[in-house]
Every structure is written in structure tokens, then in C-alpha cells.
């Protein structure tokens, strides 16, 4: 009104220029991470498909070049059927693949019931009060604890069991399951079960918080309607609330599991970083399960390795070829994680569209 427009205009143009520059800066920042991701994928993918160039050989030796061409790349069929080998061209990740599969299944078996159970208790049963606040606060603090601390906990609590069993007293507990027996080492030592329990502790806060959010999103009218029809609280939860919250819970669980698959540090402290040339329970393909069902029960108490550990082992090898083998392992790991992430996103989208409350 009182400000003469003439004075303002040059400033305004400059301000808009600054604004435009800022917008571009922000846009660039947004794409920065994604570009890095792209470069990472390309460089790893390229490494996984090639072997290092042979060291300067005499120029006229055709055998060397044809030999190099005939070799299959690091990421080939062989990679999935071989164990780790001293010869990088023969190295594969069979034992790691099965180790990771077992870990995922066991972590899911432990963390889903406990995680969803906790979330149900906190959201559906517990009364607002000191205890609930304490558990909530504790959960958010646990989510921020670094994975290496969980690793230390896993080592202390599961591998050594707080030193309850002295070195010379280590024993094997034979559990009788009527039709068969399972040898359970006590303490658990460096077995799959120690790794799985440690990873369970690690992902549990994530699973609980995701499930809580999913349960909170279920409108209370559904619960009230169920009570009105005479259902008890547990019947309501079991048949109405949990099914309605299922997509959210599943998304959270898949994301938590994909985190567990990629974790290396906890497993390393547990001492899983060893040369393992067998698969847990001697099951290395589906038909082995039928040939050797006992293996299913023995597997959790076997020593193991996992994909990220195997990758770390390859990175630490001095031979240049192992760097390419590690890249092949990374491609496999990232493919698995990408598939799981996509599944989580698809589940979320599909059910977001379908549910109408």
C-alpha cells in the first residue's frame, strides 16, 4: 500500500532467482542418494559379470585371451552350487545361501509371534499408565541401540549363556521328541540358533512398532461391532482386528526380515565367520528334506555362515579375483532384498486400495 512497487521489483526478481536456485539445490540433493545408488548398482553389477584383466601377458599368446573369454563370469550357475573355495573361480555361496535362508525362517518364527503379541498387548489390552509408557520408551530406546551391542548381547547371552556353563562342563542336552531326539548343545555356542536369536532381538523393536501402527489404524467401530455380536476380547482380536491389520503387519515384518538378512556385524561377533563347507542339517536342496528329515531338526544347532558374512570374507581375501566374487555375492544379496522390498510395497499398495472402512 504505502510501499512503492518500483522499489520492490528488482528485489522480487532476485528473490525469485534465489528461490529457483534453492529449488534446484534441493532437487539435486534428493536425486543425489538415488544417483549414488545407481552408481553402486552399476559398478557392483559390472564387477560381478567380469573377471579382472589378466596381468600383462606376452602380447602374442592367443590361448590366454580365449581362455578368459570362455570362463563363465563370477555370477553364474556354478556360483549357486559351489562352496567357498581357495580358487576364486570355483568359489560359490551355497552354504551362505542356506545359512541365510535358515536364519530368515528362524528369525521369522521367533519374531513374528513375539512381536505381534507384544503389539497386541500394548494396543489392545494394556491400560494407559506407567507400565505402558515404560515399555514404549524402552522400545524406542532399543530401536536406537547399535547392532554391534546386540551382537555383544548375543555373544554373552546365547553363545556363552552368561558363563553359566564352564568350559569343561559344556554338555549336550538330548531332547526327546517322542519320535526322534535332538542334540541341543549348552551353551548354544556358535550355531544357527544363537545367530537367529540375536537377530530376533535386533529386529523385534521394528516388528513391534510396525505392528502397533497397523493395529492402531484399525477403526474401533470394528471392535465395537464385534463386541456387540457377543464376541470376547480375544475372539475380536483374533478374528477381526488382526486380519484387518495383517497387511501392515506383514509389511513391517518383511522389512524387518530384510534388515536381518543384510546384517553382518552381529553374526560376526557371534563367531560365525568361519570356513563352512556344508549346509545346515546337510540340506542343500529340496529333495534332501525328504531324504533326511532329521536334518530339519538338527540344522538350528549346526555351525553356519550367511551371505553378508561370506561377502565380508571375500572382500578380505588378498586375491583381486575375490573382489569380483564378492560383487557376485552382493548382487545376489541385493536381488533378494529388492524382491522383499518390492513385496512389502506391493502388499501395502494392494491393501490400501482394497480396504475401505
Amino acid at each position, binding site marked *: 500500500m504505502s510501499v512503492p512497487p518500483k522499489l520492490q521489483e528488482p528485489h522480487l526478481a532476485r*528473490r525469485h532467482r534465489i528461490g529457483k536456485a534453492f529449488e534446484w539445490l534441493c532437487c539435486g*540433493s534428493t536425486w543425489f542418494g538415488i544417483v549414488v545408488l545407481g552408481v553402486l548398482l552399476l559398478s557392483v553389477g559390472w564387477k560381478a559379470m567380469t573377471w579382472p584383466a589378466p596381468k600383462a601377458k606376452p602380447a602374442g599368446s592367443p590361448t590366454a585371451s580365449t581362455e578368459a573369454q570362455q570362463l563363465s563370469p563370477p555370477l553364474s550357475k556354478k556360483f549357486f552350487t559351489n562352496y567357498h573355495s581357495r580358487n576364486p573361480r570355483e568359489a560359490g555361496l551355497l552354504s551362505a545361501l542356506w545359512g541365510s535362508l535358515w536364519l530368515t525362517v528362524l528369525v521369522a518364527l521367533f519374531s513374528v509371534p513375539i*512381536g505381534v*503379541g*507384544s503389539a497386541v498387548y500394548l494396543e489392545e489390552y494394556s491400560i494407559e499408565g506407567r507400565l505402558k509408557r515404560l*515399555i514404549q520408551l*524402552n522400545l524406542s530406546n532399543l530401536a*536406537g541401540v547399535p547392532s554391534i551391542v546386540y551382537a*555383544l548381547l548375543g555373544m554373552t547371552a546365547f553363545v556363552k549363556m552368561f558363563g553359566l556353563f564352564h568350559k569343561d562342563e559344556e554338555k549336550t542336552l538330548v531332547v526327546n521328541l517322542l519320535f526322534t531326539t535332538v542334540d541341543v548343545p549348552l551353551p548354544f555356542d556358535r550355531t544357527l540358533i544363537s545367530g537367529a536369536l540375536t537377530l530376533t532381538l535386533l529386529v*523385534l523393536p521394528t516388528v513391534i512398532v510396525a505392528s502397533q501402527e497397523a493395529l492402531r489404524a484399525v477403526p474401533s467401530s470394528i471392535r465395537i461391532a464385534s463386541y456387540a455380536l457377543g464376541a470376547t476380547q480375544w475372539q475380536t482380536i483374533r478374528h477381526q482386528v488382526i486380519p484387518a491389520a495383517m497387511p501392515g503387519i506383514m509389511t513391517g515384518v518383511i522389512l524387518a526380515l530384510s534388515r536381518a538378512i543384510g546384517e553382518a556385524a552381529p553374526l560376526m561377533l557371534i563367531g560365525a565367520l568361519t570356513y563352512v563347507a556344508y549346509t545346515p542339517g546337510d540340506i542343500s536342496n529340496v529333495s534332501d528334506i525328504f531324504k533326511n528329515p532329521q536334518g530339519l531338526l538338527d540344522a538350528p544347532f549346526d555351525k553356519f555362515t550367511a551371505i553378508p558374512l561370506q561377502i565380508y570374507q571375500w572382500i578380505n581375501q588378498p586375491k583381486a579375483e575375490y573382489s569380483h566374487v564378492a560383487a557376485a555375492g552382493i548382487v545376489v544379496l541385493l536381488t533378494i532384498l529388492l524382491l522383499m522390498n518390492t513385496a512389502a510395497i506391493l502388499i501395502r499398495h494392494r491393501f490400501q486400495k482394497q480396504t475401505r472402512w
Partner: protein
Amino acid sequence: MSVAQTTPPLTLKPASGLIKKFSLTRAKEGVIKGLLFVCASLSLVTTLMIVWMFLTEAVFGIGGNTAFFQEVSLLDFLTDTQWSPQFSEKHFGILPLLCGTVVIAGIGGLIGLPIGLAAAIYLSEYAKPKLRRIIKPLLEILAGVPSVVYGYFALVFITPYVLRPIFQSLLGIDVDVFNAMSAGIVVGVMIIPTVCSLSEDALRSVPGGLREAGYALGSTNFDVSLKVVVPAAFSGIVASFLLAISRAIGETMAVCIGAGLMPRLSLNPFRSMQTMTAYMVNASLGDTPAGTIEYKSLYGVGFMLFLITLGMNILAQRVMKRFREVYE
């Protein structure tokens, strides 16, 4: 939701179905509730186990077991400038490890925090919904890449193809194969999604009315986002920064692979450095037998790490709670 409890006292005898008496269904409900409570309390048990572990292994040993700080005095631990548990003359000074952690987390923060915040501003203030729908899942994928992969990327790509050409060939600074810079850069990339998604939540919770008021006063888009929205969401942004830094400090594999295993008290980011987390991984590799001082040092370092990250997380929660602007 049992009906019997809420029934007002009547002179008439209530219908038999409403009297609270033993029934299988009620017993089952009680048992289930108990089981779920056990599940929920497991998280408390986890915390207690962590605390118990550090107390017995690091602070005060029980059952003939001496704890780390009973063998190494706290003063030496905090002031000694050497960390050499593997040598014959053992020194347990946390400073070199702390230095490595601070340098790497610092580089990571310098890269990750501004970029993450700028990305959050872009996504919440500028980007169209369609673009957001593309970028958000991509950022989620970035967050899901395991830290071993980032370590590999630092070692085989960033050091030889980014740092060496720029700093060694052009500026003449020696760059080690393992160096804190490459680790810091990947840690920065790793925390971008954390900062971005948490800050974006904070920015988006600022009500539209504030923005519109800003525009009505003649502000440009830039003025509104930087002078209205960002200050209004400041507590959330600070909290996201603290959480991201705490993640950077706790980061293990990327740092272990990228920065190497040489404890060094220096600020030169182009040399190999060891962080607290990397030491813990390295010490466990050698299969140190339980009971030795090297083994106990794991708990000493772990305790330190735990206290630092816990402190930052609690601070972040406080900031969120204390300074949050409440909009109706």
C-alpha cells in the same frame, strides 16, 4: 470388556449368563492375556540383559570374574592416547577409537545431514505427488542396502575412482587404501534416508495455514520453506539429525571395511582409522578366548558406545517432546 463388571448393582437377580463365574472361555482369555503380557515384557528383559551384561562384564565382575574397568582404570581408559590390546605392552586408551568414530561420523554428518534435509524440503514443499511416489520407494531401497555393501562400495569404488584421482593425483595428498574419508562418505549416504524421512514427517506436520499466511504476506516459495516451515519444524529436524548421527556412530561394517583397522589419534581423513565398532568386530575375529583382557575390552568399548548412542537417542526424544510446537 466383560459385561458383568459394568452391570450396575440391581435388586433383581441378574440373568444367570451375566454372573461372573468360572468358564473355559474366561480362563482362556486370561491365559492369552498373560501370554501376551509376557511377550510385551520381553523387550524390558532385553534391556535388563544389556544392562546386566555391561555391569557384570565391564563395571563390576561377579563370581571370581574381574570386570574390564577393574583391570584398567577408568582414568587410563579415558586419557591414554594409545590403543594397543594386541601388543605385549598393552594400552587401553579409548581416545584413538573415539577419534576415528568422531571423524567418520563427522564426515558422514557433513554430507548426510544437509543433503537429507534438502531432500526432505524438496519432497515436502516442492515435489509433485507423482514424483514423491517415485522417489520415496527409491529412498526406501537406499535405506535397505546392507552396510557390507556400502563398505565394499567405499573400498572398490570411492577410494580408487573418486578420492585417489581428486586428492592424490590433483592435490598430491596421500590416500591410503583404507581411509576414513571413503567410510565417512558412505556413512553420509547411509544416513540420508533416515534424515530425509524423519525431517519430512516434521515438515509435513506443519499446518498449511502457516504457509498460506506466508504467501499472503508476499513471500516467495523459498521464503516460506526456509523462514516459516523449517523453523516451525525445527525440533523434529534436530531430532532427526541426532538420530542420524547416533546411527552413524553405531555403524559397523561399512566403517570396518572402508576405514580399516588402524587405531590412530589424528584428524587426517585420508589415513586408515579404527572406530569403536570396527575394533569390536576385529577383536572378535581373532577368536580371543574368554577371560583375557582383550576379550573384556570388547565390553568396555561396547559400554562406551552404548552410553553415547543411548545419550543421543534420549536427547533426541527430549528435543522432540520439549520443543515441539503443537498445532491444534
